[in-house]
């Protein structure tokens, strides 16, 4: 025992009680049992604390354990003091116990509200019941959500995760059956049943999007083109949101919506928009007040103004479209439009750069669903080139007509004027001849006669040519009403005039059943007269024993009448096939004849003035054949 703890001046406590054995026993037993109990209680507390981690005693338990243990030690010291007077030690022990107790009491005071708030077991039972109710409600909600998911008209809900790299559906609503034509249960078992429907061209994009969503925890959003088992293609808008569970597993919740109709609609709308925007014709839309709402690229190309310029300057179509139009005309256009009718016109307009151009404009009202005029649609075409070409053509055709008229008039007048001196030349030559013939033989001069012969001969030729020119010119215009004429009747009327020629040449004329033809009767007569004359002149067979034969046939088909005039002569050399129709071109194939060769030229002029065709060919059976066609249309 250290002296400091057992001073000599003090006496053991046993002496105070005079070592009364029953008192000593009671002290020893009582205090030892108390100490034992006090050392046991902290163990129980510590055990409790360890098991109820949910309660925070803010280290109060350590103070409790501390003050109980110090109390226990004090009681042990009481036993020791019976024999040894360690009162100093006990005093220090009491002070330590007091300190720990005071702090514990203070802490206990502070923690009182926490202790009060600790639920009672009754409260806990109630809470548990409440919890069960909430659980039931939650299940109810889930059922509700699932049935909602199942009954979404064009969508299905899903939840999936990745097992390894393979998607695994945790939930998928029954809409997938309607949209993708696969059973929800089957997809739950094998996600590939659904994913295999994705258009192979989208697979790379799909995988990349999925990987990004996993890496960045970002939403996955994509329009998928999917082919159902029945071969039908659908467009699905798929939106998934990932979330990470404590376990590290990532789960995506999402909704897929069938946007096939919308997609097709959008594609269609887009196509229409492109069609309008890229249309080569200018398209411009204004509201009912004439304020610009839209114009396409072609408008800019045509006018030089961009939409922004036109819009910013608030140029109305009045300025954009009809800069050269009078107010009155513009008013008339407006009136017509307000009446709901389309207006068409060709206007000259000024580009932004000041140059002039022609445009064809068509303005029509656009109606809303209620049938009211909602806006105006302008269609614009730059027709400058056509207009210029038209003008050019008009100028040229006017010039051509004038030249042609001049030429005809010149030919007409000169033929007429040539005729008079030609006629007099002939008459005076004859007069001279008569006088010469009456001269006595002695005065006859051979030179005089020969000269006179030549004068007469050329006068006659000149006369014939002038007459032919007149006939040729006259052949270009109808001399009577243009109508369907019966060619049979015309030939019958012509026959007596030809009979002398036919008999002289012993020519047989065979006329088939001929069609009607759209040609005035005088010129139709001229046609046949010229062609028969030609055949009679040039169509004699090379063998004088063979009977000359002229055959006329024809038919009407596909809006035109066709005639063939055939002889059985020697035909004509190929190089003359075209030349025979030239004016004053006479081919000396049958020896001499009196004509100037104008007949076929006149025939061609008649046919061509009716937009028909005439040609000559050699008949395979020998002889020449002239064919001409005249259309019905005037």
């Amino acid at each position: 025992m250290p002296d400091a703890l057992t001073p000599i001046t003090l006496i053991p406590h046993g002496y105070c009680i005079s070592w009364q054995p029953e008192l000593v026993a009671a002290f020893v037993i009582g205090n030892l049992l108390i100490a034992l109990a006090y050392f046991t209680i902290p163990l129980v507390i510590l055990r409790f604390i360890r098991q109820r981690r949910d309660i925070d005693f803010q280290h109060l338990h350590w103070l409790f354990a501390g003050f109980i243990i110090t109390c226990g030690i004090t009681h042990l010291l009481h036993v020791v003091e019976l024999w040894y007077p360690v009162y100093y030690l006990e005093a220090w022990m009491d002070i330590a116990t007091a300190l720990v107790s005071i702090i514990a009491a203070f802490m206990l005071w502070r923690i009182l509200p926490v202790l009060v708030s600790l639920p009672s077991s009754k409260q806990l039972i109630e809470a548990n019941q409440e919890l069960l109710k909430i659980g039931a409600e939650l299940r109810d909600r889930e059922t509700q959500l699932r049935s909602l998911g199942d009954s979404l008209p064009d969508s299905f809900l899903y939840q999936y995760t990745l097992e390894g790299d393979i998607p695994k559906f945790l939930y998928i609503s029954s809409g997938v059956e309607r949209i993708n034509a696969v059973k929800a249960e089957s997809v739950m078992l094998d996600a590939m049943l659904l994913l295999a429907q994705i258009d192979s061209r989208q697979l790379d994009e799909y995988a990349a999007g999925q990987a990004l969503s996993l890496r960045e925890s970002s939403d996955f959003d994509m329009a998928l083109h999917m082919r159902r088992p029945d071969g039908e293609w659908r467009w699905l808008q798929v939106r998934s949101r990932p979330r990470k569970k404590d376990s590290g597993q990532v789960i995506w919740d999402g909704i897929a919506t069938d946007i096939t109709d919308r997609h097709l609609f959008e594609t269609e709308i887009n196509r229409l928009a492109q069609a309008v925007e890229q249309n080569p014709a200018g398209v411009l839309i204004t509201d009912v007040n004439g304020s610009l709402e839209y114009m396409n690229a072609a408008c800019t190309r045509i006018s030089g103004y961009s939409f922004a310029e036109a819009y910013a300057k608030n140029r109305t179509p009045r300025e954009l479209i009809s800069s050269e139009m009078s107010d009155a005309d513009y008013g008339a256009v407006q009136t017509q439009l307000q009446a709901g009718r389309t207006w068409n016109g060709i206007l000259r307009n000024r580009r932004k750069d000041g140059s002039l151009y022609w445009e064809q404009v068509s303005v029509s009202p656009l109606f809303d669903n209620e049938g009211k005029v909602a806006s105006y649609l302008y269609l614009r075409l730059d027709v400058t080139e056509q207009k210029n070409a038209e003008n050019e053509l008009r100028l040229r055709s006017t010039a051509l007509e004038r030249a042609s008229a001049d030429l005809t008039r010149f030919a007409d007048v000169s033929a007429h004027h040539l005729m008079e001196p030609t006629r007099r030349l002939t008459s005076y030559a004859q007069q001279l001849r008569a006088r010469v013939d009456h001269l006595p033989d002695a005065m006859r001069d051979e030179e005089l006669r020969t000269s006179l012969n030549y004068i007469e001969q050329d006068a006659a030729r000149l006369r014939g040519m002038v007459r032919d020119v007149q006939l040729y010119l006259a052949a270009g215009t109808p001399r009577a009403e243009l109508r369907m004429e019966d060619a049979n009747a015309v030939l019958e009327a012509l026959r007596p005039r030809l009979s002398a020629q036919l008999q002289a040449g012993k020519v047989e004329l065979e006329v088939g059943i001929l069609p009607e033809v759209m040609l005035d009767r005088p010129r139709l007569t001229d046609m046949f007269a010229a062609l028969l004359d030609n055949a009679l002149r040039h169509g004699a067979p090379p063998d004088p024993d063979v009977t000359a034969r002229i055959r006329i046939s024809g038919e009407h088909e596909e809006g035109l009448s066709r005639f063939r005039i055939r002889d059985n002569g020697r035909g004509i050399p190929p190089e003359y096939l075209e030349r025979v129709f030239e004016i004053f071109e006479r081919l000396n194939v049958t020896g001499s004849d009196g004509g100037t060769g104008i007949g076929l030229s006149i025939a061609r002029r008649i046919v061509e003035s009716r937009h028909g065709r005439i040609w000559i060919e050699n008949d395979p059976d020998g002889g020449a054949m002239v064919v001409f066609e005249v259309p019905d249309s005037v």
Partner: protein
Amino acid sequence: MTMLKDTPSPFDVLLVEDELADARLVGFAIRQSGIACTLHHVTDGHEALAFLKREAGRYDGVPQPDLILLDLNMPRMNGGEFLAAVKAQENLASIPVVVLTTSAVERDVEHAYRLHASGYITKPVDMDEFTTAMRHLLEYWRMLTRLPKKE
């Protein structure tokens, strides 16, 4: 004025013709036809009107023609204008006018008849034909003009 007088005759013909060569041919034809007549010749419509109206006393004593032979294409006053002027004068309108021309254009023929020409002859090229034509023409009109007039 040229007077081509063969034999004294009461049948007077006025030829309106600017071309002397043609006028001469008409003279030949009439002479060869053997029809007795007096042929007066003027060279245009103005002169012809002056002849008919006896203007300025130049044609005093010359009888009015029984027949007028008229060319169409003439300077100053052409045949058509002359014809219209004659037919507009009441005292002259009864004189028969026969158009004698080179032109055979239908338009001209129609125009002449519309102006009340009494006949239209295209000058034949052949002298014999011309002579024959003139003989028939003159015989016809001489006979007509000699018929007793209705009162």
